[in-house]
């Protein structure tokens, strides 16, 4: 079963710790980061690599822009709001899902799932065409290389490889390596003879 990495940005230690202990032992969500500031998460983003970020909505309210514009690295990451006060609909619109502190554990887990699904609902983006770099990465993925090997070959960081891969999936609507290989073959980006089968 897939395990999702959850980052919590919340000012109240009681709430952050409460969530952490509530999700402890959960097969699906693992709290891999907790801090009081979004900036700290942004700085450590490539290490933390969260699948979903849960942010207190008040913290989001202190930013001059929405979270994804302020921190572009969170562009394709699911965002869930933690609502502790009266909700401001305008502010909430940027989130994929809204969790209330009075929600039960199953409700919280369901809403975290909803956030991940929501953030993935738009795989058929307008920019269907892959950039040149994304095509390079896709070709190496199709040839069966790992992220590390691709990073070495293209002389870029693993983190960059991963964000290219996220974009490729976002643009093609295809997640698995086997599916991406089919895409590369159908579009003549690789030849069957290149494949190590």
């Amino acid at each position: 079963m897939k395990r999702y990495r959850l980052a919590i940005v919340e000012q109240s230690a009681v709430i952050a710790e409460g969530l952490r202990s509530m999700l402890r032992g959960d097969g699906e969500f693992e709290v891999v980061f907790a801090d009081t500031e979004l900036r700290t998460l942004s700085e450590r983003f490539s290490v933390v690599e969260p699948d979903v970020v849960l942010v207190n909505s008040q913290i989001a309210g202190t930013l001059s822009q929405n979270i994804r514009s302020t921190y572009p690295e969170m562009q394709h990451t699911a965002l869930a709001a933690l609502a502790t006060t009266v909700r401001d609909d305008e502010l909430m619109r940027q989130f994929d899902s809204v969790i209330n502190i009075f929600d039960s554990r199953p409700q919280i887990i369901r809403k975290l799932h909803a956030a991940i699904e929501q953030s993935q609902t738009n795989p058929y983006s307008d920019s269907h065409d892959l950039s040149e770099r994304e095509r390079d990465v896709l070709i190496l993925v199709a040839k069966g290389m790992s992220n590390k090997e691709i990073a070495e070959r293209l002389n870029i960081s693993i983190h960059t490889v991963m964000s290219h891969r996220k974009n490729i999936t976002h643009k093609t609507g295809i997640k698995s390596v086997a599916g991406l290989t089919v895409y590369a073959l159908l579009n003549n980006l690789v030849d069957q003879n290149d494949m190590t089968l």
Partner: protein
Amino acid sequence: MKSYKTDNNNKAILSEQMKIIELIDADYRLLSIFMRLDIELPFGDISIAEMCRRYDMAPELFLIICRIYSDDEYIPDIEGLAIGDMLHLVRFLRASHRYYLDLMIPRITEGMQRVLASCERRQSNILFKFYEDYIAEVEAHLDYEETTIFPYVENLAAGKPDSGMTMARFMENHTDICDKIDDMKSVVIKYLPESCPTQQRCELLFDIFRMKEDLGKHTLIESTLLAPVVTNAEEGAEP
């Protein structure tokens, strides 16, 4: 007019007193549950409770399964469910496996072959290989459950726990089979050449969506119903 009760959101309230005909009226997709459990039609006017008695199914569990299948937001409440109930659930899961292997997969294979017949050979070979690999993966996944997880649950229910293993460990080995069928859907919708006939492509997509949804529910039943109840039972079985 609807003969069954609905909640504020106009969703049917499923209950043991509800008639089978009302259940199906409320959500015809639940017919697939009857199909796999080999419940014979016609149901006439019998209630869910009566049907469950005839087919030796725990009614609460049957309703939970129906709710999971028809309500995407529903999260089952496992309180009150014991390991004995999981025997009924395992029976349902095994029946689901037969439904996939004997009915859905052959249908999709046939649909795939029909659609690919109009593609050029190179493309159809690539796609059919992807499809075959995926099906092999699904079969291995189902086989792992049949030969490892289900017997473990059955032994635990019989009071003979297999001490070397835990449900949590099984779930770690539980591979994801939903991503790739989603990819298959994307490929069939977006990347097949235009020469593939629309009619056949759409029929294939109907079946892929049905299978994808069903596998999603199947996984959900295992992770939110089977795994937690079995884990609770393991804790109870410790000396």
